[in-house]
Each structure stands twice: as structure tokens, then as C-alpha cells.
């Protein structure tokens, strides 16, 4: 049952309280700055509706702001094929700036975009055989000397050391023996 505003609440026990809550105004008073526990009425914070970091409004992204560096103003995300000449006011195309995509001829190319899972079986066989070889020979270095390159797994990474050995190793070694780099230490003439 609703009680009219302003009516003094009388207790069941016959004790009349003079508490201020019992003398409420007929209209809601909104006290300025009354927050937290003492808030009155539903509060709508407009601030929460403003776009910000969490709200993902691209208009506020630094990409579209006036204060941005000049390079970003016409930024399209694509590499430019020339430059804007300020003297003549025209766009000058530069051949070197154009992207050229070199596409190979795929006719007769047999490799596909995916690998069959049967390969895993073959790889496992190779790996086990190679591990056995290593155990037999005692070290990876010795095992590498006694196995064909294709029968090792995993195949070695390419590094500058390896490439030097393959490309120049023999030449440098023979030239060293010939004495092109000065006297060979420990060798008597």
C-alpha cells in the first residue's frame, strides 16, 4: 500500500519518531554532488558514451587528425609509384618506385600447397636411421662423414660458415698449402 508523501509514519508500537526520513518532500530533491552511497535518482553519465580507446571510433584515430605529420595526410596504405612535385604541381611517376611482381611459370610444377601425412612416416624412418648411425660412430661429425646428405634428418641449416666451406674452403686450403698467404708455420724450407 502506498503512503502519501509527507504523511508522518506512525509506529505500530505507538512511538512516534521524529526522524527526518519520516518527513519526506513530495518531490525528489537532487542534491548536487551527491554520489556513491548517498546518490539520489538514476544517474546517467554522458561521459561513458563518448568515444574513446575502448570504443573503437576511427574518427578519433591519430591517422585522421589534423595535427598529424604531412606524410600521413594522403596515406592509403599502398606504396606510392612516384612523388608530388611541388614546383610544377604535378605527380611525377618514377619507374623505379613501381612494384614489379615476378611470377614464375607453374606449368608442370608438382609440389602442392599441403604435405601428405605419409611423409611423416618416411621422415621418422630417416631420423631413426640417422640416430642409429650417430650412436654407432660416436659423434654427429663422424656420422655426417659416413652418410649421404639426403639420408640425414633434420637437414642442416644454411649458415655463412657452411657456405664458406662449400664455396671457398678447398681453394683457401690449397692456396694455404702452396704458401700464398705467407710462410706456413712449422714447415721447414
Amino acid at each position: 500500500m502506498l503512503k502519501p508523501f509527507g504523511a508522518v509514519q506512525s509506529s505500530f508500537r505507538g512511538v512516534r519518531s521524529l526522524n527526518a526520513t519520516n518527513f519526506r518532500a513530495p518531490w525528489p530533491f537532487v542534491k548536487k554532488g551527491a554520489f556513491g552511497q548517498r546518490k539520489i535518482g538514476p544517474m546517467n553519465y554522458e561521459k561513458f558514451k563518448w568515444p574513446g580507446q575502448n570504443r573503437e571510433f576511427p574518427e578519433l584515430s591519430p591517422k585522421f587528425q589534423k595535427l598529424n605529420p604531412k606524410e600521413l595526410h594522403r596515406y592509403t596504405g599502398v606504396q606510392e609509384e612516384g612523388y608530388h612535385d611541388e614546383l610544377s604541381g604535378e605527380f611525377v611517376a618514377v619507374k623505379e618506385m613501381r612494384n614489379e611482381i615476378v611470377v614464375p611459370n607453374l606449368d608442370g610444377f608438382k609440389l602442392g600447397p599441403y604435405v601428405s601425412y605419409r611423409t611423416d612416416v618416411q621422415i621418422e624412418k630417416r631420423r631413426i636411421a640417422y640416430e642409429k648411425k650417430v650412436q654407432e660412430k660416436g659423434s654427429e661429425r663422424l656420422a655426417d662423414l659416413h652418410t649421404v646428405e639426403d639420408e640425414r634428418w633434420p637437414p642442416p641449416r644454411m649458415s655463412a660458415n657452411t657456405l664458406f666451406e662449400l664455396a671457398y674452403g678447398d681453394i683457401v686450403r690449397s692456396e694455404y698449402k702452396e704458401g700464398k698467404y705467407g710462410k706456413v708455420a712449422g714447415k721447414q724450407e
Partner: protein
Amino acid sequence: MLSSRVLRLPRKPFVDLDYAKHMPAAYVEKVKRTVPRKTFGDRFGAPDIKMYYVHPDDYVPSHRRPWEDKQLSEHLHRADKYFSAQLSNKFMRFRYPKNERIADTEWTFFPGDLVQVMVGKDKGRQGLILTISRDTSEVIVDGLHTKLGEDMEGSDKLGVDKTLRWQLNGAGDEYIRVSTKSGYEIPIPSQAKVTYEYLQPENYIEVEGKDTPADLVLTRTYIPKVASFEQEIMEEIGIKETRTPKPTYWY
């Protein structure tokens, strides 16, 4: 000479037995939605700020595969909740699930194993393991609809704990599964090798035109040369370049 490396001895072939073994990690993360929605980078040396779809601390694993319809829609729902909490500046408590994953080297159950309930009112009932869920350490057994409860507390005395263990085989190059009580080897069932893609790798059905067969994959065509990738391709296609670039400054 070309030399190879990486040897793992003794081998533990059981550690990577998994139904989802071949699922790309990036895809699994994507369907779990534990990927950044947006990364605020370029902060003059301060670390990036990441906004997630579902925060990794909030992701609760399930026995279902994350890419299944039901699980996926659950993740999407959670991501929506998280996002709307952020929009309305509400505080959202992350779920911080306790990590129940047992180490790969400790795990002994595999699909296809015959298991028996050791304690409780269902004691003695048997069934074959259908699926295992490593993230939640759950096992789904065919024909058994039971749940482990408080009974597990005193299970050490009943001999439930450590029924199986991993032990080096005679040759000393591989770990095998051995029963603690009897000492017999219990081989891993063939069903454990089943993944999403195949029942057994030997019997995988190759898709014509998409899959590269093994012999083609493992043929060596690389001959090392002192020329960069671009130089070799230019030589092969017949592109000749006469211009020489002027020196530039990098700063």
C-alpha cells in the same frame, strides 16, 4: 661440410600423441578467442597495450575441442560479454582457471585403453577410453557415466595412484609404459595415434592436386650457391639489371 644437429635420446614418442596434434596453433588460439582484438603499439619504447577478445586468464578449457560448434559459440559469447563490459566501463572479474594440466611426460592414459573404476560405488566397472582432454586432465570412457569425487583423497592406500609409469626399455633408447604392480609393459594402443586428420599416418588418403606425396617432398633440389635468392631467380627467369643503386643512408 653440411652437418646436422638435434638428437633427442632416449626418445619419448608418447609426448606428442594428441588428437589435435596437427591443428595449427594459430588457428586453435583464434577459435579460443584468446587473441588480441587490438594492439596499441608504437608507444615510444613503452610496452604494447593489448586488448583481447577473451583474456588468456579468463579462458576456461573444456573437454570439448575448441573448434567444435558448441564450444566456439561459448567462446564468442564470452568475448561479447567481455567487450560489452569494457564498453560500459564495468569491472569484469576474470575466471583464472587453475591449471590442471599434467606434464606430458607424466600422462599415462591414451584412447583405446581399457580402464576400471577402482573406488566408490562403481568399483569394478570397466570401459574403453574414448577421448582424453589434456587441458582439463579428463578422460571420457565408453559406457561409464561417473564422476570422480571426494573418494580420491584416500586413494593412495587403495593403490590407485601411480598404476602406470614410464620406464626405459632394454635397449635404452625409448621409454615404454609399464605397470607398477606387475612390471609388464602395456603398449600404447593404436587408437592413440588417431588425429583429426587420419586414423593412421600410413593410411592417410591423399587429396589429389593439394597434397604433395612423400617422395616429392623429400627429394633434394637445393644446391648451395654464393648468390642471393633474388639473384638466382633473376638469372633463371632472364632478368638483366644494368643499373647500379647509389649509396643511401640508413638512420
